[in-house]
């Protein structure tokens, strides 16, 4: 099996930069461009239309929040994009960022209802696309065990983990996978020239967001007690700030994203390939840092050359 590489774009860049980055990644043959949605300031479906018009890569839309958009709306996005650009689009659905959604009026957050709404929307979108003969895959974005297991109702799951031990824990949460079910991982990423470099704040904040969303079951099963203090600080402050980052500590946060060199990322990808991961998606802040993106592209080109041999 050959693991696919994807990169998240449209995180916070200006549109011209998103297009420029998309074209660069497309030129090296990246397997998929993931166009990010809310809380990105730009609307993924519209940006995806422009990206699709100037690239040939497969495109993923999302994460689209099932709290923000209903199934018919999400299905409409994929159908319209497919009408213009062909069967190139996958969609990633999840609950979305709770605190960002709170800022736009989604104040009620009952976990059981959030999970049910997300799963219901995912299944409905899958059925809608199938009814219309659209080949796009529907992925479920997940961290918690219930959602991970329920991803069997979708075409696949994009796990919000990067640490191989956590990924293996997540894979064990899926009962009775069939051969068509895809698994991917989506994580904060920053690729450096030398490991002596310090991770930028943007990486630490992105990793902290992932760590804060981790379910209590993984914390318990993997004895991740070290992050409890930071989660407590976040709950008291009600927002993610430098004090919370400090409470996590850089070492701890490095487990929630990929911060490595080009050689390191090739080795990392190969390891994930061996444990059965189908797709790795390099998330923010990589698209906001030119050097980091160049390092990733160099790694991808080398990896692609090796896979073609």
């Amino acid at each position: 099996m050959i693991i696919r590489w994807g990169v998240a774009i449209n995180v916070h860049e200006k549109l011209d930069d998103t297009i420029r980055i998309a074209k660069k990644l497309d030129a090296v043959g990246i397997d998929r461009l993931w166009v990010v949605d809310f809380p990105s300031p730009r609307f993924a479906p519209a940006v995806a239309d422009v990206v699709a018009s100037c690239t040939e890569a497969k495109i993923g839309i999302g994460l689209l929040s099932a709290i923000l958009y209903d199934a018919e709306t999400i299905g409409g996005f994929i159908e319209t994009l497919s009408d213009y650009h062909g069967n190139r689009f996958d969609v990633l659905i999840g609950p979305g960022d709770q605190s960002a959604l709170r800022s736009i009026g989604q104040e009620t957050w009952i976990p059981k209802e959030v999970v049910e709404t997300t799963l219901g929307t995912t299944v409905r979108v899958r059925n809608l696309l199938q009814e219309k003969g659209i080949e796009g895959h529907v992925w479920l974005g997940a961290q918690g065990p219930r959602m991970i297991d329920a991803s069997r109702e979708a075409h696949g799951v994009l796990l919000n983990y990067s640490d191989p031990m956590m990924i293996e824990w997540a894979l064990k949460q899926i009962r009775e996978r069939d051969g068509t079910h895809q698994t991917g991982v989506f994580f904060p990423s920053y690729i450096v020239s030398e490991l002596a470099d310090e991770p930028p704040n943007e990486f630490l904040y992105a990793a902290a967001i992932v760590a804060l969303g981790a379910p209590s079951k993984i914390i318990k099963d993997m004895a991740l007690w070290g992050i409890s203090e930071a989660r407590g600080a976040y709950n008291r402050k009600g927002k993610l700030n430098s004090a919370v980052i400090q409470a996590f500590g850089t070492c701890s946060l490095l487990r929630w994203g990929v911060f490595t060199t080009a050689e390191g990322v090739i080795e990392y990808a190969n390891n994930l390939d061996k444990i059965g991961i189908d797709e790795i998606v390099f998330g923010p802040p990589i698209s906001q840092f030119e050097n980091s993106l160049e390092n990733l592209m160099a790694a991808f080109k080398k990896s692609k050359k090796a896979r073609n041999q």
Partner: protein
Amino acid sequence: MKVKATKWIAENADALGAHSIWIGEDIGIGQDVFILSASTLRMTERCRVGTAIVPVSTHNIATLARAALSLCDIGRGRFVFGTGIGGIQDLQRLGIAIKRPVTALRETVLALRNIWKGKTVSAECEVFKLNGFGLHIDAVKDIPVFLGVRGPQMLRLVGQIADGAILSGPLDYLKYATNEIDSSARIAGRDPEDIEKIAWLPTIPTFKGGKESLAKRVVAIVVADMPEKILGMLSVDEGRIHRLRDAVARKGPDAGVPFVNDEMMDMFAITGDLLHMVDMFEKVAALGITEVVLGPPFTGDWRGAVQDIFKEIRLRRE
């Protein structure tokens, strides 16, 4: 409309000399309005592209803010955000009831303008709630906001806060609407000339095989969505109008078609041969309307009709 049709319009608009392309949202059906707007902006270079309209009642305000920002970027300033509360029939079908629509629309527009200026907004009204929401962007160029409205209070709102209005209805109504907008603008200390008035009437070029039945359906929708107060101003068969509105409310636009007679067609639509249609466009323009919209419904050889109409307009301008 199918992609083939919308693509043709986008690919030919600049060459035809069209000033704008206006894209309506059919809630829950058809192409996604924002993706269609994006692709239309991509395929044009000079033409302005606007939504006409995207309702504030059926989208989260953050989606509206982000979509408009994206389209402003894609179009490099050629995008117009056309919005409104939403058609009465659509809202009824969706079970949405807005108690204070003028306030809701006003507050939404004001919040959006602040969001596009790069501000963090905390505000709420009947259709949205924001708690410290911002796009965290540098301030952008003002995105023009046009309101698709009909009633007197809404027309006055246009004069107070909007960059333009998207109007539909008989000629008498259009005259009344432009006067209301201009008067309200003066009271608000604004120059009426700064506010565009777009007239969007059903157009049926019968000289190119246009289907009258489809046009009657569109007229039925316009009449059903027209506020009572406005209908009261017109010299029409009131009984017939009420039966039409009742039928549409109960069973949808198709049920209203049998009630649309020639009198209503003349009043609410532009139809006929080429010269008559262009004469009507000029008549509408003389009411203070700054732009007249051609179509829908697009039936018969509508591509041929569009080309002939634009050619005739160009000839008359020479």
